[in-house]
């Protein structure tokens, strides 16, 4: 039984173990929380308001997949002490790394654009024009990276994670029928309909994003977690994933109860916040907006910087925020261009914010299978991982995840390229 470690870890609950666990806590939780970024919140809000409780059953299987994927990363980090792009470079050589890094950069560029879209959208709820909010936040993010310290940003964010409590509160204020919610979250309901399928795919695509694997592994390495303390890191991943999924769950519930029941149709997370007003009161909508802003701004700090790190690590270029433009040109240009490009992208008049977020999810999905397959090849390499290679059960779950993600991605990409093709194929009217 592969999940015996949970009971085993819980069985040895004593003060020393608890203390060890608390000292290792962090990487998994932060990674999972950053994952609930602008694109994520938007997708969940749309899922709830369009299909009510119809997609809630997906939360548990998605969480299982997320735990398996993130756990593999934290295991690789703990055993080898190297980042994921390091391992890809050493195992697959310069060429593979180069193309994977290009893909990763484009993916994360799309994600960064959607974070700025989230900033613009959330502040527009408070009546701040995007032409003010976006350049200001872009400058703020850049200054934080160059002059400030990510460590402090991270600590602030850990505190700001409490803002995610806004979602359960908003869900409570929306007064859903909890019995119905419970039933819907364990009983799969399935509709063979193009837009329902596309939404399923978007939920998976936004929950498991490629950059998370790099980020998770780097956090474990940076914390200096070794294979001896590894079982705690494993627990950390699970706690983090559970929290992230719980937040997603409550977003779906609150939008389902408040918006779907009214029969409103919404297009963006900002619309969702507006639509919450009459049902859940003005506070719920303010909480919703604050939550979206918090998630977007933090992810906007993390994504450009971390992407620049992984790419320079894999390509062997100088890196580090303590360097400058002349010492580490590639590193600085990488994150500076992604911030500038993303901000400019949002400021083009009439740009469809939702479309951008949606496309960035598609690109995420397209890159994910490649990253997952490379990961599986590395983690099953006995020379590198020793006794920490995947067991048969883990491998099965992981490969199933990969195949499901690939299938979903293909469907999603097809649907993004030519909307409605899935429903035509299935033959729904």
């Amino acid at each position, binding site marked *: 039984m592969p999940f015996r470690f949970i009971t085993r870890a819980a069985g040895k609950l004593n003060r020393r173990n608890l203390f060890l666990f608390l000292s290792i806590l962090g990487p998994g939780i932060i990674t999972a929380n950053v994952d609930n970024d602008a694109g994520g919140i938007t997708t969940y809000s749309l899922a709830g308001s369009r299909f009510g409780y119809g997609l809630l059953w997906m939360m548990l299987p998605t969480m299982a997949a997320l735990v398996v994927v993130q756990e593999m990363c934290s295991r690789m980090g703990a055993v080898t002490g190297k980042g994921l792009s390091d391992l890809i470079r050493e195992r697959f050589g310069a060429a593979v790394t180069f193309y994977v890094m290009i893909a990763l950069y484009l993916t994360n560029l799309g994600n960064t654009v959607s974070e700025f879209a989230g900033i613009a959208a959330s502040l527009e709820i408070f009546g701040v024009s995007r032409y003010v909010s976006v350049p200001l936040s872009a400058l703020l993010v850049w200054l934080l990276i160059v002059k400030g310290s990510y460590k402090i940003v991270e600590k602030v964010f850990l505190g700001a994670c409490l803002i995610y409590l806004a979602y359960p509160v908003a869900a409570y204020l929306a007064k859903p029928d909890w019995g119905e919610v419970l039933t819907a979250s364990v009983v799969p309901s399935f509709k063979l309909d193009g837009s329902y399928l596309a939404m399923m795919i978007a939920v998976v695509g936004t929950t498991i994003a490629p950059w998370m694997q790099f980020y998770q592994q780097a956090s474990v390495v940076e914390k*200096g977690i070794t294979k001896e303390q590894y079982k705690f890191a494993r627990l950390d991943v699970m706690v983090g994933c559970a929290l992230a999924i719980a937040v997603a769950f409550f977003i779906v519930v609150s939008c389902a109860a408040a918006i779907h029941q009214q029969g409103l149709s919404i297009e963006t997370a900002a619309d969702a916040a507006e639509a919450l007003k009459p049902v859940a009161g003005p506070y719920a909508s303010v909480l919703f907006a604050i939550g979206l802003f918090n998630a977007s701004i933090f992810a906007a700090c993390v994504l450009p910087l971390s992407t620049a790190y992984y790419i320079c690590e894999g390509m*062997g270029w100088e890196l580090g925020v303590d360097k400058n433009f002349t010492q580490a040109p590639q590193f600085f240009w990488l994150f500076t261009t992604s911030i500038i490009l993303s901000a400019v992208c949002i400021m083009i008049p009439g740009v469809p914010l939702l479309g951008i977020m949606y496309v960035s999810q598609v690109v995420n999905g397209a890159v994910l299978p490649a990253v997952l397959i490379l990961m599986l090849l590395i983690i099953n390499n006995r020379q590198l991982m020793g006794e920490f290679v995947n067991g048969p059960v883990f491998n099965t779950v992981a490969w199933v995840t990969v195949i499901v993600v690939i299938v979903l991605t293909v469907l999603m990409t097809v649907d993004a390229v030519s909307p409605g093709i899935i429903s035509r194929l299935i033959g729904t009217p």
Partner: protein
Amino acid sequence: MSTSSAAYFASNFLGKTVIDKTGEPLGRLHDLAMTRGDGLPHISSLIVKKGKLLSNIPWAGVDLFNVFVIAVDLERAPAEPFDPAEQGNILVRRDILDKQIVDVEGARLVRVNDLKIEGCRDALCVTAVDTGVRGLARRLKQERVWSFVTSIFKRQLPHKEIGWQFVQPLDDKMTSLSLTVTRDKLGDMHPADLAEIIAQLPHGEAEKMFLSLNTETAGETLAEMEPEVGTRLLSSLEKEHASDILEEMAPDEAADVLADLPDDTAKELLGLMDAEDAEKVQELLEHEEDSAGGLMINEFLALPPSMSAEAALTRIRTKALEMEMIYYVYVLDEALKPLGVVSLREILGAKPMESLEQIMSQNLKTVNVDTSADDVLEIVEKYGLWAVPVLDEDGAMAGVVTADDVLTHSLRFALRWKRFRAKRRF
């Protein structure tokens, strides 16, 4: 076998077809094995891959080896099957390409994009590693395209090659290769640079590299490390080895490292140390970290007032290598209370038979063990001292605080901020 003296790169050859005397293809060149040469490592055999089978063809059987054709004579040196997990040889592709190595001159970690191979005597030697963008373009088989693109901007694709004698591979197998070029290249690096490199390495390799240093270098490196990195490294070592390293360190630095360890581990290590060294460290551990007592070194030159300048000079000579601070000689009475101080310059300039009493300056600036670091810094700055003597409760001299230690401590915030900013390694 003829080799030209032109320079090639490993990526020019890898993947090329290898033919035998009759022109039959034997497979593709999968890897190159290297062995120690006199000075530089040279290519000792070719690893050829056909289908899934790997075979090893010794260099002796190679007739032609250039970027156009690789031909071997199997009668002269028959091929043997090769097991890819075999660890006796060092393989270019498997063990060096794409790996991180230490650039000893630039004092940093670099990634190997390519290897430079040149003809030397009647073999091929590995002369340099290519870590630049050009090497990367060559690996991607896009050197021409990239050169063209950069030439549009009137630029050249940057070359970056590091001579083999200036690199130190991290793998322990590789050290046997590099040791023939220079003995222990890492020992030539500044401990502060070593500390920075070790902090960037994965935990297993950091330990290996640290173990490969001699105890003296290891001690100096440990003193330069961020406390948490140093502590982690020290806890991973054998206790005996750890205590040997601590003995090599200046007592104040050893105390700093031990202060961050859990109490029982610190006690155990102190117990393993040489009693005299342990006692000095123990004394320092008792003081607050940001007081004069916590910053001081308790090894200083203390001489009686009646001693002659010449005798003092001889004493300084014998102690010079083990003392951190030899610029000041403190003149103490029987109760170890300071009477005055003589600088090395004054001793050198004095007549040989003059006694210290005659040349010392009696107006001595001192601080107490509990004086705060900021006050110590103020005295150092105000009187332009290299070191300030520290007195214990009875007024006896307990140690000295050197100017650089108090500076480091007081500048810590500024320095720390810079380091702290760069802390997160994504």
